[in-house]
Structure formats: structure tokens, C-alpha cells
């Protein structure tokens, strides 16, 4: 019963936050100097008379006060209609669906890779504090934590695609091939560099965090006791450290979904990978308001669910924390 109550409260909070996200992003779109009719018409703007513009604005309800427009948008949203994207000439929900399918491969593999590698590196570095290995790993993590994501991607393209010619420079498949004809191997070949770059950036955070937890453990009484009984550092790291550090690492991995998504926008832009990130940039640059709003809401849902999982993980993995509740 308490579990149901807790889940209900979480879902309530999620809905409230999403509503706020909708309100904030809708408000931002309203104050934007970009005229939605101009954005829709594009180059045909010059051929349209002021009377016709007024008609278009009236048909779409742009003459109504912002509150009415927001109510209208919200009603459509609840009925599952996110609007029409004029950049892709498709319903927004379809654009997001298709693009996310491509992005999820990139996001998912980079996320998993970053979490696993970051965790192992952090454990290794933390277990042998002050060793050469620790110094190398820490320095690496500090440097990548300060590296601009898109610059790393540019370097990767320069090195592996342009100089060495190992990987293609762009897109999700060879140009001129229909997307359904692209084989899995080709697809992976195109994805490998974006995944590696995105993962490389994500590793730093998890590593530094895990390392700090390991250091904490190595100085704890548990470790001292184990050492006194003759256990080696590796023993302690393996038997106690893994458990001690895995929970914060997992939480961090789920809580960093937003950052991961931000990184994927930049990396998709550099690699010209036609995913959700690239669609976001296109929507912003070409003033596709419905698509921009849809993506903002969708990513907010994605990130909020990640945060919720991060919060719940504590209770599931470590029963001692459960009593605390929300």
C-alpha cells in the first residue's frame, strides 16, 4: 500500500514538472521574436498579402491571447496530437518517433559503455590511490571533464575519418542508399565513432565519482579491519568496494541522462547523424515551434524518468534507505 502511494506521489510530481516544462517552453515560444506565419511560409513570404497572412493567423488561432493558445495546445497534447512540423512536413510525434529510434542506438550504447568503463576505471583508480595508474586515470578524467564535446568529435573525425580513413565522415548510412536498405554492419560502422566519442565524455564523471567513493571506503574501518586480517587491496576492492561504489555510480548514470542527451545533440551535429539531436537543431534554426516544443517535452520526460529511477534505485539496492521514503 505504501509502495502504491509512493509511486502515485512520484507520478503526480512528474506530471506537475512536465506541466511546468510545457508552460515554460510555451511561454518562451510566445515571447520569441520569430513570427510563426513567416516561419511557416519560408521564402514564399513575399508572395502573400497582409490579408492572407491575417487569415492564416486567424485559422491557426495566433490572434487569440496566449493563455487561450496554451489551453488549446494542452488539449491537443492530451489527445496525443503534438502538431505539425513544417521542417520535416510530418506530424511532430512521427518525427520524434523516427529520430529517437536512430538516436537510441547511439545514446544507449554510449550510456552503457560510459557507465561500465567509468565504473571499472574508478574502482581501479580508487583501489590504488597514488599509483601511476591512478594518476593516469585521474588526469584523463579531469581533462575529459573539461573538454568541449563537439571539439572532441571534430578531433575524432579529423583523426579517424579524414587522416586514417577508417570510418565514414557522416550520416547514418552511405549517401544515396535508402535507409531500409542499409545493413546492420554498415550502420554500426557509421555509429562506432559517435558512440565512442559520446562514451569517452561520459566516462569522466562516473570515474571521478566512483574513485572518490573508493577512497572513502579504503580509509573506512571496514577496510582497516580487512587489512588487519591480511586482505590485500584488491581483495578489499573486490569484496567491499564494488558494493560500496556501485550504488552511487548507478544513480549518477541515471541522473546524467540530460547531459548525455545534450552531448548527443552536439555529436550528431558534427557527424551529421540524422537523430533527434540534429532534428532539435534544425527545429531551432528554422523556427519549427511545434517540433521544438515536442522535443522539449519528450526529453524532459526522458530525463525525469531517469531521475526517478535514480531516486528509486537507492531503496531497491540498499534496503536501509527505504525507510526514508520520498
Amino acid at each position: 500500500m505504501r509502495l502504491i502511494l509512493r509511486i502515485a506521489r512520484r507520478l503526480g510530481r512528474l506530471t506537475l514538472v512536465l506541466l511546468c516544462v510545457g508552460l515554460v517552453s510555451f511561454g518562451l515560444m510566445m515571447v520569441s521574436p520569430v513570427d510563426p506565419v513567416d516561419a511557416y511560409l519560408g521564402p514564399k513570404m513575399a508572395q502573400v498579402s497582409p490579408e492572407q497572412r491575417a487569415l492564416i493567423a486567424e485559422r491557426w488561432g495566433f490572434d487569440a491571447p496566449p493563455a487561450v493558445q496554451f489551453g488549446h495546445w494542452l488539449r491537443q497534447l492530451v489527445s496525443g496530437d503534438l502538431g505539425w512540423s513544417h521542417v520535416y512536413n510530418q506530424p511532430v510525434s512521427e518525427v520524434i518517433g523516427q529520430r529517437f529510434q536512430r538516436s537510441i542506438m547511439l545514446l544507449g550504447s554510449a550510456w552503457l559503455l560510459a557507465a561500465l568503463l567509468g565504473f571499472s576505471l574508478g574502482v581501479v583508480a580508487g583501489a590504488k590511490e597514488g599509483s601511476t595508474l591512478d594518476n593516469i586515470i585521474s588526469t584523463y578524467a579531469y581533462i575529459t571533464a573539461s573538454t568541449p564535446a563537439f571539439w572532441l568529435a571534430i578531433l575524432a573525425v579529423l583523426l579517424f575519418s579524414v587522416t586514417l580513413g577508417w570510418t565514414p565522415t557522416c550520416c547514418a548510412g552511405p549517401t544515396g542508399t535508402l535507409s531500409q536498405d542499409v545493413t546492420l554492419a554498415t550502420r554500426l560502422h557509421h555509429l562506432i565513432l559517435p558512440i565512442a566519442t559520446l562514451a569517452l565524455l561520459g566516462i569522466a564523471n562516473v570515474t571521478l565519482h566512483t574513485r572518490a567513493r573508493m577512497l572513502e571506503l579504503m580509509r573506512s574501518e571496514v577496510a582497516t579491519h580487512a587489512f588487519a586480517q591480511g586482505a590485500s587491496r584488491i581483495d578489499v576492492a573486490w569484496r567491499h568496494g564494488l558494493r560500496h561504489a556501485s550504488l552511487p555510480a548507478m544513480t549518477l548514470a541515471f541522473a546524467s541522462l540530460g547531459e548525455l542527451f545534450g552531448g548527443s545533440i552536439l555529436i550528431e551535429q558534427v557527424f551529421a547523424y540524422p537523430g533527434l539531436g540534429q532534428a532539435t537543431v534544425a527545429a531551432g534554426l528554422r523556427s519549427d515551434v511545434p517540433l521544438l516544443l515536442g522535443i522539449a517535452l519528450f526529453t524532459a520526460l526522458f530525463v525525469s524518468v531517469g531521475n526517478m529511477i535514480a531516486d528509486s534505485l537507492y531503496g531497491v539496492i540498499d534496503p536501509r534507505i527505504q525507510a526514508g521514503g520520498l
Partner: protein
Amino acid sequence: MSMAQPRLRALFSLGLTALLITGLIASQWLLGDSPQQMQFNARLAPPSVDHWLGTDTLGRELWARTLAGLALSFWVGCLAALLSTLIALSLAAIATLSARLDALVSLLIDTLLSVPHLILLMLIAFALGGGTQAVIIAVAVTHWPSLARVLRAELWQLRQAPYVRISRALGKSRWFVIHGHLLPHLVPHCLVGALLLFPHAILHEAALTFLGFGLSPSQPAIGVLLADAMRYLSGGYWWLGVFPGLGLLLMVLGFERLSTHLRRAL
């Protein structure tokens, strides 16, 4: 020695960063408009003795442009971090006024944290129509939540502290309590918080500009330089892509180290 070492380190990195920043600003004053000067006989020249970091497609010196970009980033980052700290401080103060306001502020924090930073930045820059001002505001408006949380917790704790309660019970004015007891505690937090924000601020400014939502393409910002470099990547003009990013990395790294040392020292 062990007590002094973190402070020494902090002082050292503070001095080094200050020196570099002074150099950066002085170089802008000395360089004048050379970042924009075109040399049509030296287009896309590789790095050499004459052209230290090479030139771009219009024959403009890359080293001058990179320095100008870093200076731009520095100013934008400074303003944005300052504004962000002010927002964090005022919202933390508002949150401690009443339970209802506290709930409102934490809802606002949750809302901001649930949208990926970059998307929020794009939305705000879009709403403000792009440009330098838009970038500064966008970065300032998105980076305060973590600092606000720290300050809010600190404020709650301080309000319950015995000396603050005694001071109040003795009838000291609100202003006296804030000025005499609360601010001295909050200022170091704000300082470190602003320094911690700074690297994020410049990275996000560069990212936003790179995507085309930030500073105008006519300015020699790092994001603009790298976006330009993207067009010449497959031609093998590697210096265009490598150096501006390297400069940005070094600057961010410098400030990152400085804030870590300062946090340990304080």
C-alpha cells in the same frame, strides 16, 4: 605544512590564472582588429613561422582569432556566472521565507533540471532571438539550480543557528542579521559557486554558438571558429579544428583546477 599546502596551491593557481587572464585581455588591447584582417595571399596556410597557428579561408590569422575568441568566452562566462550566482542567491533567500515559496522554488529547480541543459539553452536563445545578450541570459538562467540548492540548505541551517536566534531575540534588525551574520557565511559559497559555474558557462556558450544559436557568425567566438572548421574538415585543414578547441580546453581546465583548489582551501 599540511594545512598550508592547499592554500599555497590555491594561491598558486589563482596567480597563474590571473596572469593568463590579464595576458589575454592585454592581448586584445594590443591586437586591435588583427583577428579580422584578411590576407588574400595566405589563405588556408598551414602553421609555420609566419603564420603561427595557420590561417583560415580568408587568410585571417588563427592565433589572433583564437585569442579573441577566448577573450569573448571569458567575458560572456564572467557575466553569465555573475548573473547566475545572483539568481541563485536571491532564489535561495526567497525559498527560506516561507514553506510555500520553498515548494515553489524547488518546483522551479526540478523543472529546470528535467530539461537537458542544451535544449533549454536553445529554447531561451530562440526566445530572445540569438546574439551575445541572449547567450549570456540563457546561460545565466540555466546554471543556477545547483548553487541555489547549496545556498538554500546553508541558509536553513544558519537561521536555526543559536547565534542568529540570539541576535534576533535581542532585537537586532533584519538588516543587521543578514549583513552581520548571514552574508559572511554565504560569500565564500557564492565565490566558489561562481567559479564552479564558470567552466560550464563557457563550455555551454561555445556549444550554443557552435550550433548556430549564439554569438553572431561575424564575431571570432570559439564556437564560430569551430563551426567554420567543420566545413573544411575533409580538406585536411586540421589546424582550423584543433587549435581553437585546444585553447578553450586549456582555459576551462585552468578554471576547473582553480575552483577545485579554492574549494579545498576555503
